[in-house]
């Protein structure tokens, strides 16, 4: 337990520190990279809880896909920090008020009164024989089949909507259809096949330029 506790405190501290870096970095690319660190260290926390499937999927989906796209977009943007920071003082009171209200709400919902070993006793360890992925899959596709399918459909709708909104057909686009390229035949189409002898007629020996000069 000692080593596990040590690991927990290491990665918990890393998560908190990296989260602080996410909101305090001026450079948006650095902020995104710190967010990657947050995801990785929270994945480690999940793995410490023996939820290895969730931990690995967090890295696979959030770090491996979502944050890459984030980084992609942020790198392309030309963000002017000065304009973003303009009016910081005038917005500060409202912002502080909203933040305080949020903090109080969070404390009321998940405060120490509702958490901790007194409220939830530690679940018994399942042992190494239990396959996390298998158990989760059984639950998701039997008990929670409808919510899972619903979430999938919502995501699909979002993809279709996003593609439809950004799709534009440009008439001057010189799009190449490989299937049509492959189907090109000689004769009516645009190619002509020439027959050529592999060896040309014997060339007369080139006259020696030095000899002709004299």
């Amino acid at each position, binding site marked *: 337990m000692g080593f596990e506790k040590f690991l927990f405190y290491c990665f918990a501290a890393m998560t908190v520190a990296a989260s602080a870096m996410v909101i305090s970095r001026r450079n948006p*690319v650095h902020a995104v*990279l710190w967010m*990657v660190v947050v995801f990785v260290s929270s994945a480690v926390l999940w793995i410490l809880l023996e939820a*290895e*499937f969730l931990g*690995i*999927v967090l*890295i*696979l989906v959030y*770090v*491996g*896909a979502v944050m*890459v*796209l984030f*980084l*992609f977009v942020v*790198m392309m943007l030309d963000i002017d920090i000065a304009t973003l920071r303009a009016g910081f003082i005038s917005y500060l009171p409202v912002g502080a008020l909203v933040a305080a209200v949020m903090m109080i709400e969070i404390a009321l919902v998940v405060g120490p009164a509702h958490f901790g070993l007194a409220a939830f006793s530690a679940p018994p360890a399942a042992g190494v024989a239990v*396959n*996390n*992925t*298998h158990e989760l899959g059984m639950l998701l596709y039997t008990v929670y089949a409808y919510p899972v399918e619903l979430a999938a459909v919502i995501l699909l709708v979002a993809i279709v909507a996003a593609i439809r909104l950004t799709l534009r057909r440009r008439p001057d686009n010189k799009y*190449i259809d*490989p299937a049509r390229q492959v189907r090109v035949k000689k004769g009516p189409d645009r190619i002509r096949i020439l027959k050529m002898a592999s060896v040309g007629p014997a060339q007369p020996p080139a006259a020696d330029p030095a000899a002709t000069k004299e």
Partner: protein
Amino acid sequence: MIELWNALPLVVRILLKVIVIVLPLLGLVAYYTLAERKVIGYMQVRIGPNRVGWRGLLQPIADAVKLMMKEIVVPTRADKTLFLIAPLISIVPAIAAWAVFPFDATLVVADIHAGLLYILALSSLGVYGIIIAGWASNSRYAMLGAMRSAAQLIAYEIAMGFALAGVLVAAGSLNLGDIVRAQSGSVLTWFWLPLLPFFGVYLIAGVAETNRAPFDVAEGESELVAGFHVEYSGMGFAVFFLAEYANMILVSALTVVLFMGGWLSPLPQSWVQGVFPLDDGFQWLLLKTFFFMFLFLWLRATFPRYRYDQIMRLGWKVFIPITIVWILVVAVGVVANLPPWWSA
């Protein structure tokens, strides 16, 4: 001997296992670069490097010494920290993935349930090294190379993930050792046959994921000089190079484990039971992996570079539909207990 081993602290034991895997791996990477130059040389009717050591066998060491002696130049206004850690980010996943790799029926460092997921997650991290290198270099060529590379990796990772999902359906397990055991029988029960489309897609996506020819537009010498690592010199460049070759070895070895029966012998069990070099074991894994590693070099020597839009078309419009359809086919096969692969 065993008692001495068990008396060591856990951390020391894990460290020793890591060393036993990583050192030969790095040696293999070094000689893979020599093999590439030799093989491509012979394919192009050249001799290849033959000056350092007997028949050029010490060439990788000479290269390593040269690269270590070189100065690391950090470009003007580059992000120095990110510039320096980018090569590390690209090599660490390539090495860490070996932790769950089964070298034998019993020889594996961490025999975890979700081995395949772990490898997929780690291989998705490799792209950060490339993106960060491209961005931190403060160079247009590097940035364009990184963008191309990232788009390519994301496109092919989906097809690759689907191919792995197909393997998972066929084997009924995420554990790499169990996946190999599910293929036992004969050459015909290895997954390359029932999962032939996945086999092809995985191999080609693997070539694309490692940014190798014919999918090496991220380097694209003719238009981008050297792509994302154009600003790197000395060891920074060397580490990117090592990462690329380590990834090629990893993809070859994974292809063997997922589709070619891992450590299983291709000869019938009744002939080879107990006969050392012919029976199941690490030597078969090594032999098969070498074949796929050779295939990487062969592809590079044979094919011209793909055009960028055709790479995207192949990934999104060809591979993803193929894999989705074949997952359904495999799932039906598994449910119907289709012999000889899934006979209950």
